[in-house]
């Protein structure tokens, strides 16, 4: 009786979890790729990070109590990345590769995920002023990098080609 109920719960959890990953996995993997600073097409570290975060969400699935599994996974992802950020210092050629791990984390949470400054600060355990300062610095760095890219001959609309170009110069 107890065993049957547990089996039913497990199969329901597996089904719901699979549907959740099918729906939100792409966006989460994109966020993870921005965090690790990997180029498109080589997302091995981001996949590892996301798998660990998703495993935590799966373990928590029955006790989420109405909390959005996407929010939970994103929080796990941010915490894991903050904990292991020293591994991602080396530039890997992705869009945010020039930034420090902390700048990437703040930029992804604040701008890519659109989380408010206060909540970002609370999630990272930093003062709000610090989050604002890091965000401003990262935005300035990204814009000046984009301007440099544009100045080297490619138009803004084909900025992606320029990114792969710089990646080739510094592998």
């Amino acid at each position, binding site marked *: 009786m107890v065993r049957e109920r547990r089996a039913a719960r497990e199969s329901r959890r597996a089904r719901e979890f699979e549907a959740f990953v099918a729906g939100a996995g*792409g966006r989460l993997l994109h966020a993870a790729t921005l965090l690790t600073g990997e180029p498109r097409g080589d997302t091995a570290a981001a996949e590892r990070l996301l798998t660990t975060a998703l495993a935590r969400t799966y*373990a928590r699935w029955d006790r989420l109590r109405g909390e959005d599994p996407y929010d939970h996974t994103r929080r796990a992802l941010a915490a894991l990345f903050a904990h292991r950020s020293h591994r991602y210092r080396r530039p890997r050629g992705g869009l945010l590769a020039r930034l420090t791990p902390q700048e990437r984390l703040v930029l992804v949470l604040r*701008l890519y995920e659109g989380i408010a400054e206060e909540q970002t600060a609370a999630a990272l355990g930093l003062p709000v002023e610090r989050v604002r300062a890091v965000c401003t610095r990262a935005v300035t760095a990204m814009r000046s990098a984009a301007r440099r890219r544009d100045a080297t001959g490619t138009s803004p609309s084909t900025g992606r080609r320029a990114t792969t170009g710089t990646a080739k110069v510094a592998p």
Partner: protein
Amino acid sequence: MSFPDRKETEVRRMMELEGPHPALPPDLAGRAAERGHRILLRHRALRTIGWLLLLAAVVAFAVWAAIVEPWTAPPPTDTTPPLEGW
């Protein structure tokens, strides 16, 4: 309260227009579910061990109390030594 900033919007566009989301490996959900399941089993095992330890402690105390019956010992009477030499 923050308001949408032109520069921030520009960088957000850069991140969003990087292209479509990267392709999810087909087995990623399965691997994550398997690891999550192992986490659950580990938590369950730890909880069981904790309950068993608590049960063992309660049984041990009950047996000790039943054998020694500490409440039947007479209360100590002469706790203070007699005061002399004043």
